[in-house]
């Protein structure tokens, strides 16, 4: 038997150990606060910009300010673009963005989820799969402006082949944004598919199910919360993008709501950008109001993602 260690062999450093935990915790809290504070400052400055012009100078009346702000934003929603800040609005951009949202959803979800299902459930392990994986991971990091250039050359102009060129239409814009967020959707969906326990797949296979039956009835239903959450976050990114849309000629001076997918369009962030470029100070208020509209749209989408995650993600899993 070895001799028992005497207490003098230990140097507990109690104070240091006790302090290290709270210090680390405080640093983490600080890191968290940075994000919250930045968002608060951002929102505050936008609100200040809007309220300065849009509402009464009387700051004591908060209710009047809120009322003034919401009626101002309502006006922005109903007005088209104008060179007069008093009658300028975002109607064309809001509808353009909603069109984009719908079309990008239709293009990117089937393709992205399909690619992820192939990679996770079908693709044999090997060089090819590895190559595709690395490629997709890299694509997710490509700057959005590059997708803009691709969209311009490929969709808008079709490398000069005018018969098939889509022109600066919603088709071209939404296809470009779809390409932009595809890698994100593929990665999020693959993560969701990976959380489906293998025991579930095996149970189904052992009953004589084909691979398709297993995917349709077990793998996809179990991973839908994860897929939807990741997809909605990717879609919010698409809706906020400006650079690629400028590249594919989503014009800042479109004076009507698009009538169909083949129509020219503008988008909310593009309009915000073109108002913010104007020299008159009043347009800054209009731009700030547009930012609030965009933020409202994005926060709504993110809230939907959170609700979906909480609603469907709760059930026990093994």
């Amino acid at each position, binding site marked *: 038997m070895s001799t028992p260690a005497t207490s003098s062999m230990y140097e507990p450093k109690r104070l240091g150990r006790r302090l290290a935990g709270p210090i680390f915790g405080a640093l983490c809290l600080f890191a968290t606060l940075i994000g919250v504070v930045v968002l608060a400052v951002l929102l505050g400055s936008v609100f200040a910009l809007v309220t300065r012009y849009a509402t009464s100078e009387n700051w004591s009346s908060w209710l009047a300010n809120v009322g003034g702000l919401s009626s101002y934003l309502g006006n922005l929603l109903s007005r088209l673009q104008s060179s007069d800040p008093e009658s300028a609005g975002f109607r064309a951009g809001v509808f353009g963005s909603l069109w984009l949202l719908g079309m990008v959803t239709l293009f990117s979800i089937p393709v992205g989820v399909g690619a992820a299902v192939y990679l996770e459930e079908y693709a*044999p392990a090997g060089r090819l799969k590895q190559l595709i994986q690395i490629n997709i991971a890299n694509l997710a990091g490509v700057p959005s402006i590059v997708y803009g250039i691709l969209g311009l050359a490929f969709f808008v102009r079709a490398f000069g082949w005018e018969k098939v060129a889509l022109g600066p239409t919603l088709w071209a814009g939404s296809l470009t944004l779809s390409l932009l967020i595809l890698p994100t959707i593929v990665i999020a969906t693959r993560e969701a598919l990976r959380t489906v326990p293998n025991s579930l797949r*095996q149970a*189904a296979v*052992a*009953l*004589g199910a*084909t691979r398709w039956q297993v995917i349709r009835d077990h793998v996809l239903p179990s991973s839908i919360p994860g897929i939807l959450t990741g997809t909605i976050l990717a879609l919010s990114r698409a809706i906020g993008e400006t650079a690629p849309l400028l590249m594919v000629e989503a014009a800042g001076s479109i004076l009507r709501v698009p009538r169909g997918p083949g129509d020219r369009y503008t988008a909310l962030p593009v309009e915000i950008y073109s108002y913010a470029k104007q020299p008159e100070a009043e347009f800054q208020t209009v731009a700030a109001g547009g930012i609030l509209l965009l933020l409202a749209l994005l926060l709504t989408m993110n809230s939907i993602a959170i609700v979906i995650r909480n609603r469907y993600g709760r059930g*026990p899993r093994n």
Partner: protein
Amino acid sequence: MKPPVATLIHSGGPPAPEAKIVISAKRLSVWYGSSLALREVTLDIPCNRITSLIGPSGCGKSTLLRCFNRMNDLIPGARMEGTLEFDGEDLTSPGVDAVALRRRIGMVFQKPNPFPKSIYQNVAWGARINGYKGEMDELVERSLRRAALWDEVKSKLNKSGLDLSGGQQQRLCIARTLAVEPEVILMDEPCSALDPISTARVEDLMEDLKKDYTIVIVTHNMQQARRTSDMTACLMLDDAAKDGHRTGIVVEFSTTARMFTNPQDPRTEAYITGRIG
């Protein structure tokens, strides 16, 4: 020194002669990529009997069990050599329809793995995807009764299968397997995650099921093998495999009574008396 393989294979003698043979393995080897997992297994699974596979961890019991319903197909690089006959077909041949085979040879897993669906759907799903034409409610009830679970769940068929206790979940998995009307049921340590009372219920159930089904069970519990099975195969790691891979072999295959009272192989004796493993 490498023991001669042939004498090991036949050391247990043939199974009880009165039973029809359902699955017959002859010199069956299993490879995972370049490593040999199971060497030249020869054994016959008799009809309407319980056959248990015992042996220390990593000796290939589950690998052998998963050959019978081609579940090893899910593992990339797994392949079989030799012959494995079931109903006149060699299961090692690549032309075997594994999907159709798995309906006829069902499987119950170590950890209860009900689908995250209702109890009813858990039982009905397998039948439905296999194109069951009959009355589904009736099939669900019959399967749950057969798995001795009906009385406990008949009032909550729409509740999630995951809300049941571990033992109930495992019986639900058995009911789910019975619903596709298999001929053979493979059980991979079905009681290792269960408490003794649930284990006893599953064992009673197996005894009852063997009238209509052939059961092959992998177990770490020697008492369970002794209590429940008619035939026992003892697998060991092959001492002769010195290349770093762990290769399993069947060292003895005989009736359970003989295996536990008069083992022929010294390694079997050492294992069942608790000296190794």
